[in-house]
């Protein structure tokens, strides 16, 4: 019978794939964009995480077990992320690492929370290394979510403090991506500028589609027409590169205050036009220390090329804390590791860091830096490098929180 035959084929095929692997490895799922507009940051992050996991495995793993990183491409898409999450969970992942895209992060926190409620004893822990919508450690906080990057508000606080001291800034234009994170940046900028420099006029508040705009010249024309002398943007990935490229093409003379001016490709796109004008807020940059950290040098040696330039210092902090937490908990079970992570303090080459127990936000030093000539280490082979303007101590970056975390018993 036709119908029988087709179902028998289905069963045979399903048997052929076998059940999920039963090895004793700790499986960690990495769900981030590996193609499309966020590919440059996602692929670099994947290599960085793999690099640190290899180091942990080489040192014996965690509690005797090796870590296996399973990568899934989500194309910065919340729906696709949940599909990939299901796949990852089905394949036995107990930890989830993600960072590119707060829309994705919000969907994942929600999904992880639901899964953990429905599957007690098989909980999954979510390590967020880059999604910085403040809601994730405030209204939408969750016990199963830990964030290892300063949130958008914390970074804006550092950025606006730097702007506050600059008398030449009079007119500011905000341009961001139209989703939760971009809107959070815009809102924070409006609020904090009003507090610190009420004399500054905000001449534009633009939201553009996420990772879809190919030609930013119309937006640059608007910025020019508004007479702004400073642009604040949270753009990342292709959006950052294309925006700065359009600005350079049009000869736009503004200060670029960015979150992700270090996105691979940005410095190559802006070149000399960015000297003294391109600034970023980050937890590290290549000239933050007088000498390059050994892991950074090792990474750049293993992954040569401008698109592979080391950028995720917070990954180093995250994996070191993770390994330390597993050691402290003497278990690889996510619930125990989570408890060990809460409140953990660690000392790093850049300063002390602390994982807040009340909202699972990491407090780490922040740098505001500008692109300059003649720095010891340059970016992307352009001869231009970052120079620290101000450094904010980890503890000073803390902001009040509205998180009311429900803790499991």
């Amino acid at each position, binding site marked *: *019978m*036709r*119908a*029988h*035959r*087709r*179902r028998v084929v*289905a*069963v045979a*095929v*399903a*048997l052929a*794939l*076998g*059940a*999920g692997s039963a090895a004793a490895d700790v499986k960690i799922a990495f769900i981030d964009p590996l193609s499309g507009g966020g590919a440059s940051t996602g692929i670099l992050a994947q*290599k960085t995480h*793999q*690099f640190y996991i290899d180091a942990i495995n080489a040192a014996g793993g965690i509690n005797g077990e090796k870590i296996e990183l399973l990568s899934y491409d989500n194309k910065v*898409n*919340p*729906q*696709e992320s*949940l*599909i990939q999450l*299901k*796949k990852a*969970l*089905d*394949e036995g992942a107990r930890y989830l690492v993600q960072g590119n895209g707060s*829309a994705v992060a*919000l*969907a994942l926190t*929600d*999904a992880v929370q*639901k899964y953990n409620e*429905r599957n007690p004893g098989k909980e999954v822990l979510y390590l967020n290394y880059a999604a910085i919508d403040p809601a994730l450690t405030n209204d939408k906080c969750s016990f199963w979510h830990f964030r290892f990057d300063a949130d958008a508000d914390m970074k804006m606080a550092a950025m606006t403090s730097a702007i506050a001291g600059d008398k030449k800034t009079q007119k500011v234009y905000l341009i961001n991506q*139209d*989703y*939760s994170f971009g809107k959070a940046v815009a809102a924070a900028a409006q609020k904090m500028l009003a507090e610190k420099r009420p004399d500054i006029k905000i001449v534009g508040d633009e939201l553009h*589609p*996420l990772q879809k705009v190919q030609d930013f010249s119309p937006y640059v024309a608007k910025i020019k027409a508004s007479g702004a002398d400073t642009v604040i943007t949270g753009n990342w990935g292709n959006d950052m590169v294309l925006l700065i490229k359009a600005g350079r093409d049009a000869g736009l003379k503004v200060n670029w205050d960015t979150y992700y001016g270090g996105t691979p490709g940005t410095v190559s796109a802006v070149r000399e036009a960015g000297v003294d004008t391109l600034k970023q807020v980050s937890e590290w940059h290549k000239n933050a220390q007088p000498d390059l950290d050994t892991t950074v040098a090792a990474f750049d040696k*293993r*992954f040569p090329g401008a698109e592979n330039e080391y950028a995720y210092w917070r990954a180093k902090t995250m994996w070191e804390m993770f390994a330390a937490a597993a050691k402290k908990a003497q278990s690889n079970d996510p619930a125990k590791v989570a408890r060990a992570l809460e409140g953990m303090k660690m000392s790093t080459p850049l300063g002390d860091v602390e994982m807040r127990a009340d909202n699972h936000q990491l407090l780490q030093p922040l740098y505001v830096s500008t692109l300059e000539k003649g720095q010891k280490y340059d970016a992307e082979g352009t001869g231009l490098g970052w120079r620290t303007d101000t450094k904010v101590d980890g503890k000073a970056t803390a902001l009040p929180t509205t998180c009311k975390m429900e803790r499991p018993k």
Partner: protein
Amino acid sequence: MTDAGVAAPSLGGRTTHAHGARDRRVWLAVAVLVVVLPHAPGLTTDFGRSLLTQMGIAIVFALSYNVLFGETGLLSFGHAVYFGLGGYAAIHCMRAINHGLPLPMPFVPLAGAAGGLVCGLAFGALTTRRAGTIFALISLGVGELVYAATFLLPGLFGGEEGITASRTRALALPGLDLGSQLQVYYVVAAWALVSAAAMRAFTRTPVGRLCNAVRDNPERVQFVGYDPQRIRFIAFAVAGLFAGVAGGLHALNYEIVAADAVGAQRSGSVLVMAYMGGTGSFAGPVVGAIVLTWLETSLSAYTSAWLLYVGLIFIAIILFAPAGLWGIVAMHAPILHTRALRRVLARYAVALLPGAIMVAGAAALIEMSYRLSTQRELGSVVKLGPLALDASTPVPWIAGAAMLVGGLVLLRISARFVAVAWQAATLEARGGGAP
């Protein structure tokens, strides 16, 4: 606009009574299989059950697409619109249930069906005036339009974040709280069976037969006294309704619906599913949905080149087997009872070897290239089954190229032998199976 690229459905030459009895047995067998499948060895994990659930959703979606394409001849590049809009309707319904609406969760796909139907009626009225290439272009335009529009109404569509809901926070039904994947599978399977039976019944109604007529010769239909546009409109609405059901099942399974539910990629994927399986029969899209879902979930775990393999299979089917995978299987029906069948099968076995060599050579080249260009950090040694190929040395490349070319040449030669055996078998079948 007639199209010679789509094979006509096989109706068989049996009487209606025999047809009905046989059908009932088939459906009963399928129902039993569906109930038993998640307990089969190898499918008892969450992975296996998730896979079956996805296949169920894909089957409904692909069947709904075939109502448009296979039955009525309307090639649509924007069918995901009805899937997605139905999904949005369903997820809002789920949200309402989370906030107290006393509707049991398994009935949520009804909201999906309603959403799909309403949108099918609305867009269908505008777009079914034409058939053929114009219709295809309109469907493409509507798809892009709706996709762009979903970002403009964040209250309704959630913007980049999409809309989420919970499938467990509802009226407590005894034993059915949809917390486990197994329960979700049974709900999806039930809906899939009902939808498939309904669509099958639709093809048997006079309207369904008229759809086939409109596909084959719209001018003649007009002369006979029916309005082709009306009939296309009805088909469009029916297709939209069942696409909405699929969207509702999707909302239940993933608990999120976002803009890419209406996107061009999803429209493309259902097209590939239906065509790969074979648009000329009812079972074709089912086969296509199962195969493509399996490739998407399982093959992607083994190789990052899986989309290329899917594309190559798709092109091969267009060029050499337009009746699809099921068409290839069904093609053997007439020669099943001939003696020459044995020779045909023997010739298949002979052609299998060069075919396998060619595929292995191609796979080696493809996998090595992908490793070097996309995953350099994993090193240059690629594992292909039991072999380890070092992509940084010339030997595997030369060997792979040689296998590809050699296998292709030998395959073409052995294909001729297969053709000869087929000819003999067909002659015998037509001759009545005489010894």
